[in-house]
């Protein structure tokens, strides 16, 4: 049950961030691209032609620390490997790309805030 709630929260966060990116004129290319090594939450392309691979962290409280603290160096590097994997399988190796992270905080009254950090690596 708890797991299901978390999935709903996560999906909500990804939806919110997708809208945020669209609002910035980015094109959403793919959502929840998954291979055995892991998953990329959002793949988008900026108007400049740069691919953005976005990890979304959604939290309903900061009791367990800030969402960004859940992303350590190792995790960021795994995202980079996944990103290269996506680029390779889609024939885009050599394209400009960056790793972004987004934190969505859902307050008790249902409102939410987005923190977006671009090009974290």
């Amino acid at each position: 049950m708890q797991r299901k709630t978390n999935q709903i929260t996560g999906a909500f966060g990804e939806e919110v961030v997708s809208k945020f990116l669209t609002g910035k004129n980015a094109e959403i290319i793919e959502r929840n691209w998954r291979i055995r090594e892991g998953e990329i939450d959002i793949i988008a392309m900026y108007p400049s032609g740069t691919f953005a691979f976005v990890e979304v962290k959604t939290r309903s409280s900061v009791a367990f620390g800030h969402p960004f603290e859940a992303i350590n160096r190792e995790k960021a590097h795994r995202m980079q490997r996944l990103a290269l994997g996506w680029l390779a399988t889609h024939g885009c190796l050599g394209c400009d790309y960056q790793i972004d992270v987004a934190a969505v905080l859902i307050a008790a009254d249902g409102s939410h805030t987005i923190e977006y950090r671009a090009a974290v690596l």
Partner: protein
Amino acid sequence: MSLAQTKSVALLGLDGHVVTVEVDIADGLPMYSLLGLPDAALSESRDRVRAAIVNCAEIWPNRKVTVSLSPAWLPKSGSSFDLAICIAILSANATVAPDSIAEVVFLGELSLDGKIRSVRGVLPALIAAQKAGIKVAVVPKANYGEAQLMQGIEIIAMEHIKQVIRWLRTGEREIADVIDMQWQPSDLNIDFADVAGQPQARLAAEVAAIGGHHILLIGPPGAGKTMIAERIPTILPALTVSQALEVAAVHSIAGSFATRSPTSLVAPIVSPHHTTTRVAMVGGGAHAIKPGACSLAHNGVLFIDEAPECPSGVLDSLRQPLEAGTITIARSIGNVTFPAQFLLVLAANPCPCGKFTGRGHNCTCSSQQVRRYLGRLSGPLMDRIDMRVHVDPVGRVDMARPELGESSAHIRERVIAARAIAQQRFINHPWSLNSQIPSRALRSVFAPERTAMNFLHEELDKEHITARGLHKIIRVSWSLADLHGNKIPTLADVQQGHALRGGIDL
């Protein structure tokens, strides 16, 4: 504003370098990198600083924090940068105005709840800060006493980072009570009056204090060697303020103010145990080079009991500081020079069992053992010892005497008067104490009376003394002459010096 800077001080020995602590907070994943050759204790500052900030209800930036300590080539060690890093982070995070801290030196270690803990070396750090033109320094309250020795720099003592933050935001702060910085001319409750009898050793101690003559006390256990040695600081003239500052700076680095007040004007006495190592004696250490016993005894007395029991090499490591008055320690992180001008007092038993005194009836050692025992003190070291005094067991006559011996205050007056005469005499020479007169001068400008010189030459002919011993006797006799008010050493002074020199040359 995501960039801020403040100042702190890195110490290498007694030399301080003002270090600029820069903090940049950039977008990116939460990360913390500390640049500028930090050692282990300094690298751990991250966790202390973070806990302190969070526990004081301030904001820790969940972004990429880069802390740079420049100059980057200078190795930095210790926890004293905590406070400077903490304040710079708060400032970079726009919670404290950056221009208010850019030229302020911060020293102090942080506890996890934000208290500012005492650190070592505050005094030498402040001396360096003042030289670099820093006007304001924040120090831990526990170090306020020694910090106040510094003139010409505003010292702000703080106990907690909340106080620092309040001061930086509003300008308000509690003014710490000015600690009464009266120099303490004497804080010792020991006195030469406690020593029963021992006229010869008393005189030797007095002469040592006048001329800075290094001295070896030989006597059986319980005769009072330690008692006499411990009382030598009480008859040395009070330190001048500049000497006291030198002493306080060395003790600040060693963190030994628990045993000695920073404002004491009494000459320090350090008595390392005879099992001490070379590094403990002369100073050293791989990461932070700390002063050894010979530097802690700077401007005071280095007393080594049971000297022949010291491992070979430990005493000989004192030869260079005895010669130069400083000790230079070379390690991979750099060369450090500490002052080490001390009066060396060695004490020894006459033989391994300690009973070879008088006719030596109770001694159980073989003659070879006896000879070898004092032979463990190497020739080059003994070369620098001017007096070898036998301290005989106290007899019942001396113990039964009801009146006390002469008090330290009395003796000190004579020492001060005699030193003044010597200083006047050496006004055109690079040395200031009788023990420092070079051998050449002892035979020419500073030769004793003709009759006295004849006496010494006769002794030399009879092979009672060596050429080295002759020079030492003349040096000691100069101190005796100053004590007795003679313009140059008389025959009596020289004969007394001969007696204090004592025994055969080792």
